[in-house]
């Protein structure tokens, strides 16, 4: 693995006086200085004409550059780095095709509020607007998918733009920002040190919620007979998981997470109902449907969670905690809006709560549902390998802090259902955008972010093929990652929908021409394993884990296996289907 940057984090905000770095002479150097000041250790990127001055300045920096095979990989790796560390991941691309290749990863980060900053080269300012070679309107393209996209027009202030973009990505509701860097601006002379990372003056971040509002909310929650907590990704982003554990256990309220909220509350805890939504547990979905008071924290009530809004928690008063006022009553009306940082508001709620809700009966009912609708799968002897079994077995042999990355599809659902998550920042997946191809590069970003933690990536054959070239990066950097391709020779999730809702007309969803991923891995210089028999699961997993470097298990799974429970799109969470035949009843 490459050397980590030698600048320790604590020094990051120290000013020029006590550092012996070379004085700045160009815009590009001020860009790199701004990243250094913000504490950047890694950047993920691909070279190119318009970004060359920035790379040239990077030559003299302690920041480690990780060359990716494709810019999409750079943006996903940076995103995952941000998810795992909580600090913005950084990606670089050149103008035109470099910048457009970043777009998927930027949109992905935007949907999941992941802190990330993208720096893109641009043609020289005199050429801008003339359809010059490798010109695209990067700011125009990315504006809808960033917190802010900056066009850096001046060598003297380009470093300030980067500092501001960095601070903005990290603060409040996190998200991606972008700075577009025209070549003449980065080449241009300047001796200006960039300002310290500061958010723009028009940007306010709420902290504590209004005390009166908190008081009203806790009264409602304490009076509830069927209370639940719904914890979203915002809980993890705000580092509020410990506060959540404290609150839920003190007042004995069952906890459901959203899919991005996985890890915010330990799934092995008695109060945990795991996660709700389209493929969430039956017990979580029943609890959501029947609750009379929901404390929802850091969730945007995405439609994969709510199903049809008309049937979402229809009896519940909603207390909604969010740092972004625009999320309040956007999809689900909030009876008690609490705008603020999740960690601080949980503290306020904890202190203000007059008593625990009287909910013994309700908690018992939730436990009953757990035994009525357990997360299980069948594994008859003569059938091909079951993907759930692979996930479950892997989960059992690893430590709690193992990081799980995924692509998008059935495998992602099995990973989220059958892995037992107990720690925040260990579940790295593409939620809001649902980006196939996220897994392979995300695992690289995650491993660099947490070199001491085990990293496993469950991928689908379709998803893996979309970014498989990033394996070369894992090999070059000698990253100890275990990739498990749950290979069903299909874009399985699409096939499942075709079988369920399109009369089994499997248009373009079966992939009988898939490569042998173990051999493909070997071609890249990684270790490849082929797994076909149930009896070999444990040994193969152990062998792959023991290999010091990237290993790929091509796991040939039962192509007939589908993901259940399932709430059909726009359906009623309480009416989840447990098997194919239920879908017809809904």
């Amino acid at each position, binding site marked *: 693995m490459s050397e980590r940057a030698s600048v320790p984090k604590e020094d990051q905000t120290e000013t020029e006086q006590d550092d012996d770095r070379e004085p700045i002479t160009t815009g590009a150097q001020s860009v790199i200085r701004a990243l250094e000041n913000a504490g950047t250790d890694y950047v993920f990127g691909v070279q190119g004409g318009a970004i060359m001055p920035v790379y040239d300045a990077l030559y003299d920096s302690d920041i480690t550059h990780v060359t990716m095979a494709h810019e999409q990989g750079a943006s996903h790796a940076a995103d995952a780095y941000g998810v795992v560390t909580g600090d913005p991941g950084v990606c670089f691309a050149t103008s035109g095709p470099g910048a457009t290749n970043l777009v998927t990863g930027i949109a992905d980060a935007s949907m999941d509020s992941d802190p990330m900053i993208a720096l893109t080269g641009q043609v020289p300012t005199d050429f801008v607007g003339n359809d010059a070679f490798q010109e695209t309107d990067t*700011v*125009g393209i990315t*504006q*809808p998918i960033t*917190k*802010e996209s900056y*066009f850096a027009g001046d060598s003297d202030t380009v470093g300030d733009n980067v500092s501001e973009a960095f601070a*903005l990505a990290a603060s409040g509701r996190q998200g991606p920002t972008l700075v577009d860097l025209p070549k003449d601006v980065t080449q241009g002379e300047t001796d200006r040190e960039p300002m310290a990372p500061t958010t*723009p003056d*028009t*940007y306010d971040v709420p902290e504590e919620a209004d005390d009166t509002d908190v008081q009203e909310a806790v009264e409602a929650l304490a009076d509830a007979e069927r209370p639940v907590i719904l914890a979203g990704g915002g809980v993890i982003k705000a580092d509020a998981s410990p506060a959540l554990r404290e609150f839920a256990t003190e007042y004995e309220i069952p906890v459901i997470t959203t899919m991005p909220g996985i890890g915010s509350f330990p799934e092995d805890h008695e109060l945990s109902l795991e996660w709700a939504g389209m493929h969430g547990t*039956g017990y979580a979905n*029943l609890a959501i*449907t*029947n609750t009379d008071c929901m404390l929802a924290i850091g969730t945007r*009530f995405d439609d994969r969670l709510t199903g049809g*809004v*008309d*049937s*979402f928690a*229809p*009896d*519940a008063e909603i207390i909604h905690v969010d740092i*972004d*006022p*625009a999320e*309040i*009553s*956007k*999809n*689900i*009306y909030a009876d008690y809006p609490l705008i603020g940082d999740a960690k601080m508001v949980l503290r306020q709620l904890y202190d203000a709560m007059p008593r625990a809700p009287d909910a013994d009966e309700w908690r018992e*009912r939730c436990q009953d*549902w757990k035994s*009525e*609708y*357990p997360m*299980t799968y069948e594994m008859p002897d003569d059938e091909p390998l079951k993907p759930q079994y692979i996930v479950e077995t892997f989960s059992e042999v690893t430590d709690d802090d193992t990081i799980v990355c995924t692509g998008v599809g059935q495998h992602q659902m099995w990973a989220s259902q059958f892995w037992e998550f107990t720690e925040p920042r260990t579940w790295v997946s593409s939620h809001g955008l649902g980006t196939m191809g996220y897994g392979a590069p995300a695992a690289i970003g995650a491993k660099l972010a947490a070199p001491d933690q085990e990293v496993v990536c469950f991928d689908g054959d379709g998803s893996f093929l979309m970014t498989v070239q990033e394996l070369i990066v894992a090999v070059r950097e000698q990253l100890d990652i275990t990739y498990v391709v749950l290979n069903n020779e299909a874009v399985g999730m699409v096939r499942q929908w075709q079988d369920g809702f399109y009369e089994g007309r499997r248009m373009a969803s079966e992939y009988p021409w898939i490569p042998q991923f173990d051999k493909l891995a070997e071609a890249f210089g990684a270790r490849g394993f082929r797994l076909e028999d149930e009896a070999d699961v444990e040994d193969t997993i152990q062998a792959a884990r023991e290999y010091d470097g990237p290993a790929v298990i091509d796991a040939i799974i039962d192509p007939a296996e589908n993901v259940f429970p399932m709430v059909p799109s726009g359906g009623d969470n*309480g*009416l*989840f*289907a*447990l*098997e194919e035949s*239920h879908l017809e*009843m*809904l």
Partner: protein
Amino acid sequence: MPGPAPDERMRPEGRRNSQGIRVDPEAEVTHEPRQAVLSALVKHRPGVLAEISGLFSRRQFNIESLTVGPTVDEDTARMTILIEEPEPGIDQAKKQLQKLVPVISVTELEPEAVRRELALIKVGGEKPDDVNAVAEMYGGQAVDAATDSVTVEVTGSKPKIDAAVEAFKQFDVQEVVRTGAAALERGADTLEKHD
């Protein structure tokens, strides 16, 4: 097979409407659209208009008009945005606008705010005196006259301009350009003081 099938499970009585608001199961409640005048102070810099109009189009807010111009502070511009939406949509529009980095402040103006729109109407030049007479009826004036055309300027509320355009139709209207509304709160209140 584990657990009761879908139709045998515990179910509550309530439901929500399409806006996510809990409703009485017996009643049908949805919010009717209404018109709102949003006024926003924004940083005066390239790309702001695209950012704001992009927000409105991608979130599918039903926009009636949008005007923009500088204020006395050269770093600040002011926008007047008329939207027609149900109540939750108006609230969303305000909050989404406020979220944009170049936006300094947003407020919804009272219905009685001063609202003005400007129209330039070019009509045939055959009857200049009659054209002038109609223009005066609407407090407008001719601002350009040639042998075969007269251009009239009218300012006022939207209904007044609608009526004026209608009235000028008798003179063979050749072109009309309208600005959309600019609006200010009545009395001493200013946007800076709102917060």
